[in-house]
């Protein structure tokens, strides 16, 4: 896992289901307050986004540079990255 300021970058674009979701959840369990996860994905992971809502995490999706899609994930209440 790489670091980019207070962000962690996780590339799951080459993985088959359910690995992207499993890895993302594992990373999110260790996500410190004030930092965010940049999830590099080959598509918008709609079910994961629904799950983040339920877990009280915030997210934003943007077109990626290394991969098709990047999802930024941070704790509710933290400043938006």
């Amino acid at each position, binding site marked *: 896992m790489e670091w980019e300021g207070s962000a962690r970058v996780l590339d799951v674009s080459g993985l088959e289901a359910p690995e992207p*979701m499993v890895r993302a959840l594992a990373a999110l369990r260790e996500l410190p307050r004030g930092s965010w996860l940049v999830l590099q994905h080959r598509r918008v992971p709609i079910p994961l986004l629904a799950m983040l*809502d*339920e877990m009280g995490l915030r997210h934003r999706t943007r077109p990626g540079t290394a991969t098709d899609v990047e999802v930024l994930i941070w704790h509710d209440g933290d400043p938006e990255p």
Partner: protein
Amino acid sequence: MKLVTLRIDALPPMRVPLRFYLTAPVFGMLAGSLLLVESDTALASRWMPAALALTHLLTLGVLAMVMVGSLFQVLPVLGGGSIPGTGRTAAVVHPLLTIGSGSLGYGLLTHSAGSLTLGAATLGVGLGGFAILVGTRVLRRQAGGDALFAIRLAALGMASTAALGLVLALGMAWPSLGIPFRLWTDAHALLGFGALTLLLVMGVSFQVVPMFHVAPPFGTRTTRVLSLGVFAGALGLAFGGELLDPRWPGAALGLASTAYALALLTRLHRRRRRRAEPLVRAWQLAATLLLVTIAVGTAHLSGVGDPRLQILLAALFGYGFALTVVLAMLGKIAAFLAFTHLQRQCLRAPEAIPLLPTMDDIVGSRAAWTQLGVHTLALVALCAAVLWPASAPLAGATMIADFAVCGRNMLGAALRYRRAERAIHETIAATGQRP
């Protein structure tokens, strides 16, 4: 009066429900295999790809498959008239449902846009079309007993569940559509379980339990109040959103379904036909599981935050309440249809009567007890796996066994039917040649 003739003798050909009944166990065994292979994630969260696929293999590939197949036989008997173009309709709906369940399951597992779209399209046409056909052509008439009121509402539930499912699958395949995925998933699940599955089982039980087990009737007013309570509660929970405190529709759904479960249990307790057959035990088990589901659902709605509760709810209701009844009814309907078709052939040829099997010869009560026993084990294993994930492979294995028993029973019924039919035809041909 021609219409009446069609309505009253609407016995579907054996092959119509049978094609659904033979397909369902295949999807059940696929679901069990998926649970076995993806045992780490399939029950971990309802958003896991394997969990979404597992749910839809069971609800579409098994529950919807059997329910649709059974409606061809059950609706005319309940006074709703036959489904237009019986054989042809089945020949269109069955492949659509089969392709749809398979490709939606695959699409949910792999997040493949193509499979999701194909699944959404085939199921939208197949199930949506079937619900509209049943709702407008069969159930629109005023006739019919206590069952049809609930089944009409269930047809509405089926159409809306299918419509929401279609949008959700397309929304997952094409994220740019930007649909509110989580909210609509909740609505889709609530309608599918409450407004479709529960109401359909209720409707059938209103008619079938008093008659087959010689039990006191539910009473028209009770059946209507309960059906409306369940329908309104499910609808309110699904679409109430910000407007409605979910505890109100939740209470309506909880109270109506509790009252239904208790009414069902007392009817069964007061039945005059004391024979302890598997179907009676299946109804009793289902009613009890509905009460357990309501208790867990109440805990969930009152804010017990454990995400496993949602999965447990789906397991208790879908695999417990609904599938227990469905598997037990399946054996009875297959045996009855096979018997009655064979017997009608003997009406013109009394010399063939000795070749006629009883219903018990077609799907025996031992087979039915085995089904109920293995199914109960599979349910216990599934619930255990939700709470103790390490036991998920065991749940997968018992699930495969559950549907292997079902498949064996259905295949056995089909083969016995063919064998008896051939023997009867040979006897008729042989005696027909005599002077």
